[in-house]
């Protein structure tokens, strides 16, 4: 805590504050725009941070991450389409409120609750991150190897409908990470074309895997006959202060949202949508009028938004301490850290304390900026909804090319980015998800490096099996890997049985 307070003023320098405000404002608009996911928005912005010092670059990414999660509620409330998966629970009561002519009130509640939840999550993050990072100091090559595998197994289980497909995605990502020269021996592997000689850089892979499938998906929807249920936006004058007072009285909803969101956030891979839905469900169970939920109950918006923003801070705890991202967007943020030469774990808090604590302080400030901008933008947010998909396709594609080319001024990277993206789009049609692939690419070098180091030590010592499969910490992490995969398999079997039972009834 003392380090946090010591470095707090660094987040308040003119440049950092300006970047924070621009990032928050832009993040709200990106989050509100249907078709632009927060993960893709952060991935597209990573190249912009090359020209900034690491702390400023991370402030931009952190501010956009925070704001896109809250901004996604705007489209959830106004047009019944969540701007981000984290906002799924918000639309359950947010859109009915908008249909009742209470769009502005719903948006006000959304941003105030986001601030409350977000601040709670940040406190949890500040308290728990340094002790966990200290624990990570005791990790050797086998523990680091298993941590990388754990990260992939968690993401594989939660971001794909099928654990087998998720794990295949993760393994495919690990395979991509081995393209190029081997780290210890300098021998080329999988270099089937000159374009691949230097391996696949993180940024082109991130942009390709997240942006290109989105471009094709937007193209798919151009002639869609699905009619969006757009609520009429009716500005309501003079309701800000009464809404704030009303919102702050929802102590139960805000508490449930903040606590559930923080707990879910710490669990790697669980993500905001899980946090929002569980908190919403819990609040409804504890409510005196459970039947009013889903029909425009303001408490529903408050609990969902406080939960998905409370998740943001804690989702960075496993990322900053163990390199295990708590959500797909956090995985992209991990790429941003590595690009600036910052490696998660104790190194971040010992050798780069200035950057790390400035980043954490900026996330706290971003919560306030998000709330203030959100409240101010509420009256005009309906304008963001009218950006046509046609323009989004062109703009995203042009930014994807710029972002990829700027990494090494190489057109080869653009080709790699587009090829990976097209492959991912085809994969998505077969139920594969981008998040495990990205995590495989990011964690691949960590896994391989520690595996080879560990193997060298093990060969001269106790043998590979004993070195990697014994020891308390190894057993704990292996158990977590198995539990994570086992839980996903159990969930799949349960879902299959439910479908089967329904089919039999029909």
């Amino acid at each position, binding site marked *: 805590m003392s380090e946090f307070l010591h470095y707090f003023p660094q987040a308040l320098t003119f440049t950092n504050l300006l970047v924070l405000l621009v990032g928050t404002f832009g993040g709200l608009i990106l989050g509100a725009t249907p078709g632009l996911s927060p993960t893709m928005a952060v991935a597209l912005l990573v190249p912009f941070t090359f020209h900034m010092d690491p702390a400023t670059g991370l402030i931009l990414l952190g501010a956009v991450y925070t704001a896109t999660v809250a901004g996604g509620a705007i489209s959830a409330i106004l047009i019944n389409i969540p701007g981000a998966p984290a906002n799924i629970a918000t639309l359950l009561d947010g859109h009915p409120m908008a249909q009742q002519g209470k769009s502005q009130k719903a948006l006000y509640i959304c941003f105030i609750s986001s601030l409350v939840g977000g601040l709670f999550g940040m406190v949890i993050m500040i308290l728990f991150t340094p002790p966990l990072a200290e624990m990570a100091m005791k990790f050797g090559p086998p523990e680091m190897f298993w941590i990388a595998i754990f990260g992939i197994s968690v993401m594989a289980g939660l971001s794909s409908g099928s654990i087998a497909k998720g794990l*295949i995605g993760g393994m495919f990502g690990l*395979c991509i990470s*081995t393209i190029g020269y081997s780290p210890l021996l300098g021998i080329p592997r999988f270099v089937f074309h000159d374009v691949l000689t230097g391996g696949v850089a993180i940024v082109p892979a991130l942009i390709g895997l997240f942006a290109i499938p989105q471009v094709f998906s937007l*193209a798919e929807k*151009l002639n869609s006959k699905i009619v969006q249920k757009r609520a009429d936006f009716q500005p309501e004058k003079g309701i800000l202060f009464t809404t704030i007072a009303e919102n702050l009285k929802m102590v139960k909803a805000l508490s449930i949202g903040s606590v559930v969101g923080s707990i879910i956030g710490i669990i790697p891979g669980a993500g905001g949508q899980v946090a929002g839905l569980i908190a919403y469900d819990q609040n409804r169970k504890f409510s005196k009028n459970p039947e009013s939920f889903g029909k425009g109950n303001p408490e529903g918006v408050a609990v969902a938004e406080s939960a998905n923003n409370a998740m943001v801070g804690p989702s960075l705890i496993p990322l900053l301490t163990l390199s295990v991202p708590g959500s797909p967007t956090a995985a992209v943020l991990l790429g941003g850290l590595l690009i600036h030469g910052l490696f998660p774990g104790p190194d971040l808090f010992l050798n780069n304390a200035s950057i790390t604590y400035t980043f954490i302080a900026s996330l706290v400030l971003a919560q306030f900026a998000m709330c203030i901008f959100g409240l101010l933008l509420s009256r005009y947010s309906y304008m963001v909804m009218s950006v046509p998909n046609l323009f989004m396709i062109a703009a995203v594609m042009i930014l994807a090319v710029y972002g990829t080319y700027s990494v090494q001024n190489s057109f080869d990277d653009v080709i790699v980015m587009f090829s990976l993206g097209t492959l991912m789009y085809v994969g998505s049609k077969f139920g594969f998800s981008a998040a495990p692939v990205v995590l495989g690419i990011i964690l691949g070098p960590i896994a391989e490096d520690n595996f080879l180091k560990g193997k060298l030590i093990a060969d001269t010592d106790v043998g590979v099996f004993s070195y990697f499969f014994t020891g308390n910490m190894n057993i704990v992490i292996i158990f977590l890997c198995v539990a994570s995969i086992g839980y996903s398999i159990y969930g799949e079997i349960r879902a299959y049985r439910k479908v089967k039972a329904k089919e039999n009834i029909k």
Partner: protein
Amino acid sequence: MIKELIISLVILAGSITLYCTLGWLEDPRAATFPRIIILIMGALAVALFIQSLLMKRKKGKAVLQQTSVAAKGGSAAGASFPFGMVVTCFLLIIAYFAVMQWLGFYVSAFLYFCASTMILGRKDLTVRKGASRVMSALIFVAILYILFKIILVVQTPKGLFI
């Protein structure tokens, strides 16, 4: 189900091919990690194959029906896949890349913006809408030029123009 079976076989074939290429490496130690990964990937492909055989769902019928409609190029009726739109989008991007190496980033970005909004949105294209799309492209590229070229001074693909 057919979809799952096909994809699992494709992944298995890909894994076998990649595994074989590792045999060409000068030093087998460089292949240790990729070999383990590929073996796991192959095993997962087999697991997916078995899973899709065991978990026969009635939903499989719908997937087949949808695929066959898409293959025939079926359009707007129901939930058919807009194959033409996606292919057009793909070809426009390829053309954008080709032109970029010749004309440079900014000019090609302007042309791509105009072409993609006009061609993909040709159904409701009017003179007025066309003019507004060209103006939007111009404004967007001008913002990029100011941001990248003047403020950030970053390199972008160069060609005959800017």
